[in-house]
């Protein structure tokens, strides 16, 4: 499974999100390859899931990957829930 975490520049916030997403995936027991990048690189990148903020999700509409929105990057409960809701079923 390939997961992208995405932010505007691909340098800071997407890396923070990647750390917490990797932690959550490990806790839940999902194996995935998580990469962080900026929004324009992500739009031409193949992936199963893209995790990003509400703010950037709009610019990724039409992407083949399923978009998962996280609003609070530091709330592990929200991240765990977003992953369980969107990913476990697959």
């Amino acid at each position, binding site marked *: 499974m390939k997961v992208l975490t995405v932010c505007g*520049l691909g340098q800071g916030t997407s890396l923070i999100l990647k750390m917490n997403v990797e932690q959550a995936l490990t806790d839940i027991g999902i194996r995935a390859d998580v990469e962080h990048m900026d929004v324009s690189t992500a739009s031409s990148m193949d992936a199963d899931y893209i995790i990003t903020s509400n703010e950037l999700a709009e610019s990724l509409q039409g992407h083949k990957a399923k978009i998962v929105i996280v609003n609070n990057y530091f709330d592990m409960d929200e991240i765990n829930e977003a992953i369980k809701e969107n990913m476990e079923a697959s």
Partner: protein
Amino acid sequence: MKFLEKTIIQLDVEVKSPEDAIMKAGQLLLKDGLVEPSYVEAMKQAYNKNGPYFVLAPQIAIPHARPEDGVNEAAVSLVQLKEAISFGHAINDPVRLVFGLGASSSAEHLTLLRKLTTLLNDPQNIEQLLQATTIDEVQKTIRNGEMTR
């Protein structure tokens, strides 16, 4: 690597706009020679171009730019605002804690972000940073934050 050291923390700061708040966080990095003036300018431009996506959690903004915009040393500064200000984020507004991130391309960047993430993953730490009235209090929270997880 400089992670929230005394000289790059400022409390009870008044700002007129989100741009002003970003500049203040950037200036802390600038005055210690951690970034170049071009980097602070790029932090502001990133906000104008890409919007407030870096408001990562309620009350918390982490403005930054790219390493090639002029970073000398990986660093995180903190500006605690006297009054919360709206960045235009649909959910996490208004902002009171602005962490200026000097993003380097070195391995230290990752270490720095891990420290920041560990600190902010604990809601109690955020509450203490919001309440802090002295730099010593902030540093105590930071030291405690480093011991958890």
